[in-house]
């Protein structure tokens, strides 16, 4: 399936910003089940300096700085991505979770070392006793890893209410556990914390969902903004994506932007500014099948 994505980020400032420095993760990864067909990022005012570089996790990262006084910063990213479904994995083909995690620690190949990056605590997905307690019922002794992860995902979906505005990007996992509500980022961070607290390997994926679902399917939560889910490492197989917000294994409707230990590694736009006073941030995301988008474009407006 080929998608067209438009992701517009606007900062409005009360007074002029004389200098800002930014880092953006807005260019989708083009590997594995995804082919990046084209992309462009338009920034206004035009940055005096920009640079593209792969970050530590291999995400395409855009750095730029605007050095003229401005009261509004607009970052508009457009891309076209071809997405294939994940290779399916049967539960029977996965290890029981206890020997599975030993397997990861003993694996010193590049893939094993990479998995090890995501066992340890990170700023937004810490190792937590509470998360461990919450996760344990899904992982009785001998539970197959895939079944355990599916069960955990299902419980998070059932126990937690999807409620925009109930949390901020920095709401800690333990607090989310307490409140039993949150948004896709919170559920992803919670699920990662649960898995890491059992010393399993899980990473945070930032991406998009199709805004208007295919005929006959319900619209998924998180489809109007950028979305987030979880990749879990299966020894001797690789990574599989799980979307706890929608209780599903990641499908071809999930477009991968970037991954990291948690949100802080891959936030779409981050910046530091001189001046500006009060700021307001607005974000609009639109994802459509490529053909449908072309039809709409003749209508003029997005």
């Amino acid at each position, binding site marked *: 399936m080929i998608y067209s994505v438009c992701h517009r980020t606007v900062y409005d400032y009360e007074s002029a910003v004389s200098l800002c420095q930014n880092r953006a993760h807005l260019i989708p990864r083009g590997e594995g089940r995804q082919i990046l067909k084209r992309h462009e990022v338009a920034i206004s005012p035009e940055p005096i300096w920009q640079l593209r570089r792969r970050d530590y996790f291999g995400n395409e990262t855009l750095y730029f700085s605007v050095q003229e006084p401005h009261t509004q910063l607009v970052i508009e990213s457009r891309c076209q991505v071809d997405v294939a479904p994940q290779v399916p994995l049967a539960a029977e083909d996965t290890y029981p979770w206890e020997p599975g995690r030993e397997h990861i620690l003993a694996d010193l190949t590049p893939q094993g070392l990479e998995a090890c990056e995501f066992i340890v605590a990170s700023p937004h997905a810490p190792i937590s006793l509470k998360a461990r307690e919450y996760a344990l019922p899904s992982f009785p002794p001998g539970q197959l890893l895939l079944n355990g992860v599916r069960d955990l995902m299902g419980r998070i979906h059932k126990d937690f209410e999807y409620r925009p505005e109930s949390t901020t990007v920095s709401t800690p996992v333990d607090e989310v556990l307490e409140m039993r509500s949150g948004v896709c980022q919170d559920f992803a961070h919670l699920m990662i914390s649960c898995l890491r607290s059992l010393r399993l390997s899980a990473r945070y994926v930032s991406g998009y969902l199709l805004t208007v679902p295919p005929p006959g399917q319900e619209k998924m939560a998180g489809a109007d903004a950028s979305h987030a889910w979880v990749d879990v490492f299966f020894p001797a197989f690789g990574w599989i994506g799980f979307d706890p917000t929608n209780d599903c294994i990641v499908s071809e409707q999930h477009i991968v932007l970037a991954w990291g230990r948690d949100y802080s590694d891959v936030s779409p736009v981050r*910046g530091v500014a001189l001046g500006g006073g009060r700021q307001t941030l607005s974000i609009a995301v639109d994802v459509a099948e490529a053909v449908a988008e072309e039809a709409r474009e003749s209508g003029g407006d997005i």
Partner: protein
Amino acid sequence: MPPSVASPHLSPLISSYSRFPNVWDELTGLNAIGPADSWTPLLKHIGRIGAAELNRRWEQALRLMRESGVTQNLGDKVNDLDRPWVLDPVPFVISRGEWAKLSGAVAQRARLLNAILDDLYGQQQLLRAGLLPPELVYGHPGYLRPVHGPEMTQSDALHFYAVDVARRPNGGWVAISDRTQSPSGIGYALENRLVTLRMMPETYRDCAVQHLLPFFKKIRETLRSIAVRNQDNPRIVLLTAGPANSSYFEQIFLARHLGVPLVEGNDLTVRDNGVYLKTLGGLQMVDVILRRIEDSLCDPLELRYDSLSGVPGLVQAVASGKVVVANALGSGLLNTPVFLPFLPDLCPHLLGEDLALGSLETRWCASAGVIEALVANFSNFLLKTTFPEPGDDPVDCASLSAGERAELLARVKAEPHGFVTQERIALSTSPSWNRDHLVPRHTILRLYAVATGGGEYMVMPGGRALVGEDASAGVVTLETSSASKDVWVLGESVPTAPSILQHLATPGPLKRSGMDMPSRVADHLFWLGRYAERAEDAIRLLRALVLRVTDETGFEKLPELETLVNLLAQMELAPPAIVGTAAPERRGELEEALLASLFEDDAALTNVRQILRSLRRAAWMVRDRISQDAWRALNRLGSEFPTPEMSRQLALSEALASLDDMIMPLSAFSGLAMESTTRGPGWRFLDIGRRLERAMATVTLLSPLAAELKESEPYVLQALLEIADSSMTYRSRYLSSIQIAAALDLLLRDETSPRSVAFQLVAIQNHLDALPRDMTAADLGTERRLILSCLSGVQLADIGTLCKADKEGVRRSLARLLEKIAAELPMLSDALSSHYFSHSEAHRQLTDS
């Protein structure tokens, strides 16, 4: 039998020295009775100098250090900045042979840690080969992913290294902890050396102590050689977290010694991927940053987002190769003890040598058998967190109760990855001076090394010895140590240099300071000038009042009192309620109010205590720009000001003496600050601040004259002349007849009188003309327009007209002129700020999208 006992000077020192059992002692080894040969010359000298003389020299040295503000603040509050550190007069002595082994081992350890950093931020072969558990690196908060990669590891990562060492009971050296982040203390070591040397110059010479100078020369060379651009004359800066930082004094000292500017994060900005210093003359490119802030705080864009002390964009600037940071970002990774157990295997692997300097026996609780060993011999261990965070202090297991012990063991078993155990060792001791004789004290040495290129190191021949508080065994750290001492590495022959002091003070390359002054510094100097003058103005007014109130002739003869009391309220030195207390029956109230204006410790007031506090704070902010002498005057001012407790007991008559005492050091400070500051923009801003404040104060002083004061006028005029320190000039011109026209001319319009308003305005105008500005601009610019407006108002005024009152007794044209100046001078201050200091604006985070 030791031969030295024969010396008449030596024997009492030795016989009174009572060493601790079962630990190594520097003087006597583990068991010996007599002193080691290396100590004999020093002890002979101390014996010859004698206790009384040594104490005298020591006192003098300590006073000198206190007055020049040699401090080491452990708290983070600005008010807390003044804990002077104590220098033990007895240096730590190491023989040449011992030093050769020890320094070689320290250099090897530096090479090893540098090689480990190089691997972990590059290929990570150590992880692939199973020599280091990956999760110790990946889970480490000090492992900074944004600086991983080939572009970040082009030169040595570890430019500066420090290690704390001590001796085991058998005399063998052991590394207690490694400092790879941005080791502090090199400057302290130098300061200790200078002071010790001043105390015992002949002893230093006779012991043939090795000099520190070559080490400092090497530091300069290294900093120059690591620059990628401008290798001939790179711009090097020392990046500090600011005056609240615990080793700020040392940073000032080091910056001065290396001849590099001390800058804060906000002084630097990244443009087009290069780092620039924001100066009065514009942006200037920086080639090398010697950082004294933690690496994770260096770039709020890519490292810790909550950092206020960093430079946004620094990581990418480093990646682009335009700037080099020393130590490299990420080097703090190896500060933690969890890597220690792996060093003995890593050393042969990376260097092909055996590790020469072992570490404290350290084990990671997740390794096999460690928890079992901990359970079996619990009290033998120190327990630390694997990745220590602020507040995670090591736990001495021997000090725990049974309940605490069970609780801690449960935590370790639940989360073995989070803990390491370390052996407790009986620390070695060295002799310390207790004003009468030598006593043994637990001692650790902090030794320093600097990279010399190609992964090699030079170790400072000396260092800093930290001395434990008392006899109790335990962990000596910077926080718990009671004193520090110089470290003397004995050389071969008597040094030939005539003056070591001179050598040590050799400056860097010659240069003229000027437009490269950071805007922030100009801003602080401006305020320093204002506060110094404000303090003086306040004290002069209060002194005039106190003098009158405590005058035995009584109140009724003081017609000027009411005006002076009103002025006090007008200058906001007392609450408005003070108005009216000049009446004779309210004398008690007035006295109390005056004492409060002087001494009350209430942040809401702008009284003398608060002004002095602001002055001190402003001085702290530019500590590195103020000469030692000026600083000493300021310290004296602080020490002579009564404490809140003392001032409560103080009668007004006694306060008079302390007011007189304050004028002197204040004038000394202002004079020295002016005299010892080069006539560059810094000096101009300091003086503009002072002139502006004095002009405003004088205008306020003259404001009562805007209305005719009838019979009290001559008395008021006399008081005003006195407060403005102009009585003498007046009398020499007009003898004793007090007339308003003459007084106004002297205080307002006379451009030759350094106390007049006109004099201040002319001085400010001259400064503004000399400051950098756009010469092509068609108009004058706000600040020059304002000063011209004030000055011409004064110059064009006719004294006769100014003195003339209307039917209601109001001097209209004087009132108008004073109001105009009083309104325009604050505007001038704002205009200066926005023109010259706007670069000092701070950055802030945008909301993450």
